[in-house]
């Protein structure tokens, strides 16, 4: 075996993430005449919101129109690397180097400034049976339809909390699927308290469209109790107080909000803090979206707030990275989006007691098959620091490196009065095969 020599590159501004925030940052960098490179892990640009596919260009809202315009602009340029994974961030002789794996090669990039736009992942309230094939995330349903034109089944149930349940169910129905039910965890009254934050036209119209299409399928206050395999389908059992509901469907889509992908930012030395109103652990920045060391963060990593917040923050981060003054109107628009974000994450959150009521048999860490019972036992024995829980149960130690279970563990510990520290992150940021470092 021979060590592969990495290729060296230098760039004025490196943007990590080619979703809507990264695209917005790149556009501003280009307008300001700056040299830049955007590195995107997926084989397509646009992130989860736009998910580039030929012929897929819905232009039903202003934000989507703006997003697809940015995407079409980016597709004409060479500064966007797809299927490229950032492995880590290192300092050598006082200079920052970012390692990127691309097409079987490793690149060491020395950026002047860096903009982190790594987006978010979904969050889940687990229940027995959530690891069964046929239980998917609500995001997976959208991804299957948008990118591959495939439905996860003919008939499905959507359960969890937040407006994204409706968005995903709507996409599924439009593609020809049967929505057996949409079960929102929170009460109707609580969901209604979100209405004032929709009063800005675009979001209200979108919400109304979903309600008109699926309002009769939407039920409030229901939670999935367990799922079991039944023939070729799944039997989903739901509960609301003393009421029970049971249905056999092809698939169950679940989602309980989002959690920012802070791993790379943490590895680069950016501080993170827990904020329930912003979706969990978020990258902590100043008003200019800077987190020190010439690093800036934008989009979902600074707080879960949706595409419009990402568009605005991408511009702010790019201007700040170039040392330009950020117009106060832009900062004001960001404030408005943050208010929306806080309302969204607060109204559509999982009630704290439900984390404590997760049955012992429920798998929490899917990669390592660690159950709630295993965690409770370890906590009872006094192991409640993350490091101790890892050592005793193997939680967060699997392939996904805690991306799915750590937000669950965080909420469970917080509901029990323990405030966990953020996860410690080590390179590679995501698992890669050893083969990329040595020639075969």
């Amino acid at each position, binding site marked *: 075996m021979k060590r592969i020599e990495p290729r060296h590159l230098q760039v004025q501004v490196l943007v990590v993430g080619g979703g809507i925030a990264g695209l917005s940052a790149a556009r501003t960098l280009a307008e300001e005449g700056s040299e830049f490179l955007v590195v995107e*892990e*997926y*084989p397509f640009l646009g992130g*989860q919101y736009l998910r580039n*596919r*030929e012929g897929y260009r819905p232009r039903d809202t202003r934000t989507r129109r703006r997003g697809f315009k940015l995407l079409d602009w980016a597709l004409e340029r060479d500064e966007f690397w797809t299927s490229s994974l950032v492995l880590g961030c290192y300092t050598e002789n006082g200079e920052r180097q970012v390692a990127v794996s691309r097409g079987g090669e490793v690149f060491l990039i020395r950026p002047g400034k860096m903009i982190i736009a790594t987006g978010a*992942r*979904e969050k889940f309230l687990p229940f027995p049976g959530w*690891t*069964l*094939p*046929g*239980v*998917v*995330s609500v*995001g*997976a*349903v*959208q*991804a*299957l339809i948008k*990118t*591959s*034109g*495939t439905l*996860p089944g003919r008939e499905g149930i959507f359960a969890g909390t937040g407006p994204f349940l409706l968005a995903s169910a709507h996409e599924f129905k439009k593609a020809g699927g049967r929505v057996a039910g949409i079960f929102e965890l929170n009460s109707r009254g609580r969901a209604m308290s979100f209405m004032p934050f929709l009063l800005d036209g675009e979001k209200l119209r979108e919400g109304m469209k979903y309600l008109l299409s699926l309002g009769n399928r939407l039920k409030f206050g229901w939670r999935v109790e367990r799922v079991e395999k039944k023939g070729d389908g799944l039997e989903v059992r739901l509960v609301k107080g003393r009421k029970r509901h049971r249905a056999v469907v092809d698939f169950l889509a679940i989602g309980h909000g989002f959690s920012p*992908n802070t791993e790379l930012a943490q590895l680069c030395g950016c501080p993170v803090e827990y904020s329930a109103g912003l979706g969990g652990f978020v990258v902590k920045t100043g008003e200019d979206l800077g987190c020190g060391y010439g690093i800036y963060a934008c989009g979902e990593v600074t707080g879960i707030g949706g595409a419009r917040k990402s568009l605005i923050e991408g511009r702010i981060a790019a201007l700040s990275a170039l040392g330009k003054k950020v117009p106060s109107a832009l900062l004001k628009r960001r404030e408005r989006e943050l208010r929306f974000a806080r309302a969204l994450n607060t109204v559509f959150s999982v009630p704290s007691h439900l984390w404590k009521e997760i049955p012992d048999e429920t*798998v929490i860490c*899917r*990669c*390592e*098959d660690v159950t709630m019972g295993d965690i409770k036992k370890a906590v009872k024995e006094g192991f409640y620091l993350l490091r101790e829980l890892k050592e005793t149960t193997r939680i967060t130690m*699997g*392939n*996904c490196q805690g*991306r*799915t279970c750590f937000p669950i563990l965080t909420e469970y510990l917080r509901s029990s009065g323990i405030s966990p520290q953020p996860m410690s992150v080590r390179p590679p940021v995501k*698992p890669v*095969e050893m*083969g990329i470092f040595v020639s075969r």
Partner: protein
Amino acid sequence: METVHIRVNGREIEAREGEMLAAALLRAGFKVFRKSPGGSPRSLFCGMGTCFECLIKVDGSWVRSCITPVREGMEVEVEED
């Protein structure tokens, strides 16, 4: 839309150019992709490369099938139920 052919556990299936491998597998009736360390069946879950549940072997390398586009002649191995 162009059709591409891939082999899954030795069986040839058709896929659509540009789609992700996980979608082609589901459509061809492969519901289980792999087993967890404890032996329970797993399949596509997050659909965006985060959870690693759809990890399978393609031409001898491990990939996340939800973010891997299909390619003519791919040799795919899944752990069936």
